């Protein structure tokens, strides 16, 4: 890992240089909503944010994506899809959201490979921005991560006042900085100290904490618990938690066609909807909100850890902040731990 600094006033030049070769996605602001968007100029960027409303998963796993096109009907034909190899930069991605891609990799790069996600993933460079002021419902530290973690990014920026402290982590990141090395200066010991104190301060800001010890085992024992009914009672089944979640990846596939042309698309879906699992016969394995709420919690905190090295939660806090009825995943897991077997 090499450390540099980039003067804040040099940031626009840095972004312009990147734009020559890459599609640059960065946080932009519209009213109170921050969103990662393809920017056309450095001034589109707004870094005065805690986190984006929609997670940047929407860049690599687009909400609506064409799988291939076809000529519809009973004499149909396939018009193959070219898988894009466009190079992308996601600038100022938060460490928690960067982690979500490592979690999603375990889904899309497993027994089968999903080239639509993976090609975008491989062609993307993640430039992280440390979370100097974590939000009120942030709890990434509960997963052993830090608001200034460099573990899941290629390059990490940390705001240290007049400059950004820049760490190049992966080969991808190192190569990128090498090409425009004249913009950077070597970091001094003082810069490093500034970063360390930013990290300490950020960690101290995080007040919320999820205790995960024994949760996977406990969940195995309380599948039939009354707890799921009591949580589901207030749930309105809106799916906001899943849409805003950086690790939720479930999708629906549909054919959308006119008489002459059509496409098979995939579009984000939500396990909180009853249609999601409804069989054509009318049988539904998850007929009630109780089943759906339970499945959501189990998927993240039991099935994922059983199938991969991760819990499918990064502690970004979006589902907590935007749940219309205050179903709070930290509280849910605390209750899981409290249930008497």
């Amino acid at each position, binding site marked *: 890992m090499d450390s540099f600094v980039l003067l804040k006033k040099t940031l626009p030049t840095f972004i312009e240089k990147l734009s020559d070769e890459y599609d640059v996605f960065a946080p932009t602001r519209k009213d109170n909503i921050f969103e990662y968007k393809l920017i056309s100029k450095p001034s589109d960027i707004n870094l005065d944010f805690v986190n984006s409303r929609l997670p940047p998963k929407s860049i690599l796993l687009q909400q609506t994506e064409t*799988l*291939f096109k*076809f*000529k*519809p*009907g*009973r*004499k*149909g*034909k*396939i018009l*193959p*899809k070219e*898988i894009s190899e466009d190079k992308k930069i996601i600038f100022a991605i938060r460490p928690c959201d960067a982690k979500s891609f490592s979690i999603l990799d375990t*889904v*899309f790069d*497993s*027994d*089968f*490979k*999903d*080239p*639509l996600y*993976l*090609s975008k993933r491989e062609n993307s460079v993640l430039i992280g921005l440390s979370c100097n002021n974590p939000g009120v419902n942030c709890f990434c530290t509960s997963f052993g991560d830090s608001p200034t973690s460099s573990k899941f990014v290629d390059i990490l920026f940390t705001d240290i006042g007049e400059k950004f402290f820049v760490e190049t982590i992966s080969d991808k990141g190192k190569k990128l900085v090498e090409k425009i090395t004249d913009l950077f200066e070597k970091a001094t010991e003082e810069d490093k100290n500034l970063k360390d104190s930013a990290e300490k301060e950020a960690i101290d800001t995080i007040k919320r904490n999820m205790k995960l010890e024994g949760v996977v085992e406990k969940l*195995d024992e309380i*599948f039939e618990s009354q707890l799921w009914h009591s949580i589901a009672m207030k749930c309105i089944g809106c799916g906001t938690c899943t849409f805003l979640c950086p690790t939720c*990846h*479930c*999708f*629906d*596939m*549909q*054919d959308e*066609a006119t008489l002459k042309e*059509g496409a*098979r698309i*995939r579009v984000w*879906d939500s*396990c909180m909807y009853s249609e*999601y*699992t*409804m*069989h*054509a*016969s009318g*049988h539904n*394995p*998850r007929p009630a909100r109780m*089943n759906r709420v339970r*499945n959501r919690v*189990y*998927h993240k905190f*039991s*099935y994922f850890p*059983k*199938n991969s090295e991760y819990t499918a939660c990064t502690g970004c806090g979006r589902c907590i902040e935007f749940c219309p009825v205050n179903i709070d995943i930290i509280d849910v897991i605390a209750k899981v731990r409290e249930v008497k077997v």
Partner: protein
Amino acid sequence: MTENPYQPWIVTIDEIRNEVIGERAIKTFKLVFQDEEVKKNFTFLPGQCIMVSLFGSGECFFAISSSPTQKGYIEASVMKLGKVTSALHECEVGDTLGVRGPYGNHFDVDGWKNKNLLFIGGGIGQAPLRALINYAIDNREKYNKLDIIYGARTTGDLCYKEELADLEKREDSDVHLSIDVEEEGWNHYVGFVPDNLTRFDPSPENTIAITCGPPIMIKFVMQNLLKLGFSEDQIFTTLEMRMKCGIGFCGRCNIGNLYVCKDGPVFSYNQLKNLQGDM
């Protein structure tokens, strides 16, 4: 990494057989790959599934109901239920469809060598069993006795009638049919499949029981098998769920931490017993 797993191969409908007509119509589609290479190289084992699509209507997951010993084509039996299956039922011989697969695990055709095979099917649930039955008939020396317990609501709802009649005629296999409600001229059992199983009282010795049908039937068949002395690792079923991708990404077909599309559809009773999940 240019291969797009969502993009199917094109098949031509070579033959359509009406298994059941009326409200709960079932048709068996015989599908032939248009690409000669694919036709030659497409291999699967009984129990595996395919995604069949009609361009513009959508895609559905079906068990392959033909045996891999039947070369040059694959078959899927489709009950007319939802949007896609209704559109498939409108199709005619010569029409083109999309097929991708094969997906999922399969029956342990080698592990079950020299064993008696007991099939317990209900309605359209016979489709995946038929693949294994035909496979066993074509590899007859590999297995011992074949018993087929099969039932449907009415005589009109029974699939594969001719094949079942042929099996009945054979000396090395027995068929035990049932319908739910009495009908004139019916000289087999009247009642539910799990009861027909108990009545038949098969010996668990050196036998593998494989069941498929509506969820409620599977549940009672398994209970009755246990009562008949079958051990938990002698009982297998094949499950279905609503699916979209078939390859473990789209999320909806999980039972506990397993996905029916790639970890199933064939499960042993042992596996299911230890699996907590919504079915």
